């Protein structure tokens, strides 16, 4: 598969480092403008594409970077430190790539994976639907397949960065006769993709993700439907990878807040050498929690990497990955709030180097995007049947 001439493919081993450089040199300088105007972080995505980083998870034999989820996670922490909106967009994209890599086996889907790498396609996702009450494991819309081509219309309350994406992975009932829970994922792409925007995205945080609603109409080759049922894709890949990568973005937000708090305390210490700054002990406290956050993300990544397909489908693993999401989304808010207490009014003001306003607003979104209450309800259900001590 030929790579477009202006793309220099970054390979496994260098992915996290290159993402960190782009975070510092491109995403960081643009972050305030992206946030203020609620616009797509185009320059960051262009920089990532130029280095082949949107295909980091695509295997080498399909022209991708051949990196693993752990390496992308590390890159997302770096990106999340500088611009959480950019990092969320990139995380959501990689989640879709992971689903394609692990569950798209036919020749058409394999060919498409090669195109994703060669052209650095950006993939979006449409799992929620108007009328299902936020339950992504049931669909109202259905595929109609005739003569090897599918047709689909979906009322999507949210498709993040849809206008910038090269394809949308959409959940739908397998056929018009299928029950709501019998779902598949299909790759919807131009020219067979039509998006009609519904409403605006003017939110407290993650403003650059441009998460507006759409009516999506699509047609295409029926072989663009992933073979595995959505239930399996969700359990084995979409859910764990989403929770791992989102947690990485949120860890980035928390890490930047802790670094700013540390700089603040050190500046205080320099002003009065020999006197312990009043917030120093609080900094030590928040550093303990931050370390817990880091270790939790690392151990969850290791658990994911070590799991075989039975392991990925196990109840204990599902409960663990859900716990990661709930815990990470709670810790990020706790940490940013503690760091605000450390930096005081300098963090509350919007015009100081210690401003944490954007961090706080972004962090608050973490527990709402796939609401923690819904995740806890799923865990409550799974815990009714969990056996053993895992």
């Amino acid at each position, binding site marked *: 598969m030929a790579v477009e001439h202006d793309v220099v493919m970054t390979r496994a081993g260098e992915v996290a480092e290159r993402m960190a450089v782009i975070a510092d040199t491109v995403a960081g300088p643009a972050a305030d403008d992206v946030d203020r105007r609620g616009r797509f972080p185009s320059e960051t995505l262009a920089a990532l594409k130029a280095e082949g980083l949107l295909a980091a998870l695509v295997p080498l034999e399909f022209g991708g970077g051949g990196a693993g989820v752990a390496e992308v996670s590390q890159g997302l922490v770096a990106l999340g430190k500088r611009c959480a909106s950019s990092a969320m967009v990139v995380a959501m994209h990689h989640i879709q790539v992971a689903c394609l890599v692990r569950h798209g086996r036919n020749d058409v889907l394999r060919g498409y994976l090669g195109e994703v790498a060669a052209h650095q396609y950006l993939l979006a996702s449409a799992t929620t639907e108007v009328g299902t009450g936020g339950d992504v494991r049931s669909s109202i819309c259905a595929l109609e397949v005739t003569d090897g081509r599918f047709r689909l219309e979906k009322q999507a309350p949210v498709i993040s960065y849809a206008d910038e994406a090269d394809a949308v992975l959409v959940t739908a009932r397998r056929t018009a006769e299928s029950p709501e829970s*019998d779902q598949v994922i299909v790759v919807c792409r131009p020219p067979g993709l039509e998006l009609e925007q519904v409403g605006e995205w003017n939110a407290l945080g993650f403003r650059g993700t441009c998460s507006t609603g759409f009516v999506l109409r699509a047609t295409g080759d029926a072989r663009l439907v992933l073979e595995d049922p959505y239930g399996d894709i969700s359990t084995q890949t979409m859910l764990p990878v989403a929770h791992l990568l989102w947690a990485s973005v949120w860890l980035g937000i928390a890490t930047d807040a802790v670094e700013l708090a540390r700089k603040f305390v050190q500046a205080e210490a320099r002003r009065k050498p020999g006197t312990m700054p009043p917030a120093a002990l609080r900094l030590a406290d928040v550093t303990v929690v931050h370390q817990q956050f880091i270790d939790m993300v690392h151990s969850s990544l290791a658990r994911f990497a070590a799991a075989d397909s039975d392991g990925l*489908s196990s109840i204990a693993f599902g409960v663990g990955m859900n716990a990661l999401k709930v815990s990470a989304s709670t810790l990020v808010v706790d940490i940013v709030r503690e760091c605000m207490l450390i930096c005081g009014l300098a963090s509350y003001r919007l015009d100081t180097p210690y401003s944490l306003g954007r961090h706080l607003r972004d962090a608050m979104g973490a527990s709402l995007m796939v609401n923690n209450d819904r995740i806890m309800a799923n865990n409550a259900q799974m815990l009714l049947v969990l056996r053993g001590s895992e």
Partner: protein
Amino acid sequence: MTVDETIRQVLAEHARLAVPVESLADDTDLFGAGMTSHASVNVMLALEDAFDFEFSENLLKKSTFESVAAIRAGVLETTGG
């Protein structure tokens, strides 16, 4: 009641299928017939109550509950029948 009758009765009460239980073949995919993962949990709990046993950890996976035949195999493995 036979094992099969008990399984079908549990499915009728808890699987919330889109089709009548009588229409299910031995190997009909229950998830394809509309059983959600939430409903499958209730099926499992009701089976444990009906047979007065606990499924072992290795049987607590989607494939154990994917058809009448699969459930029967799981039940027989657990009861040693």
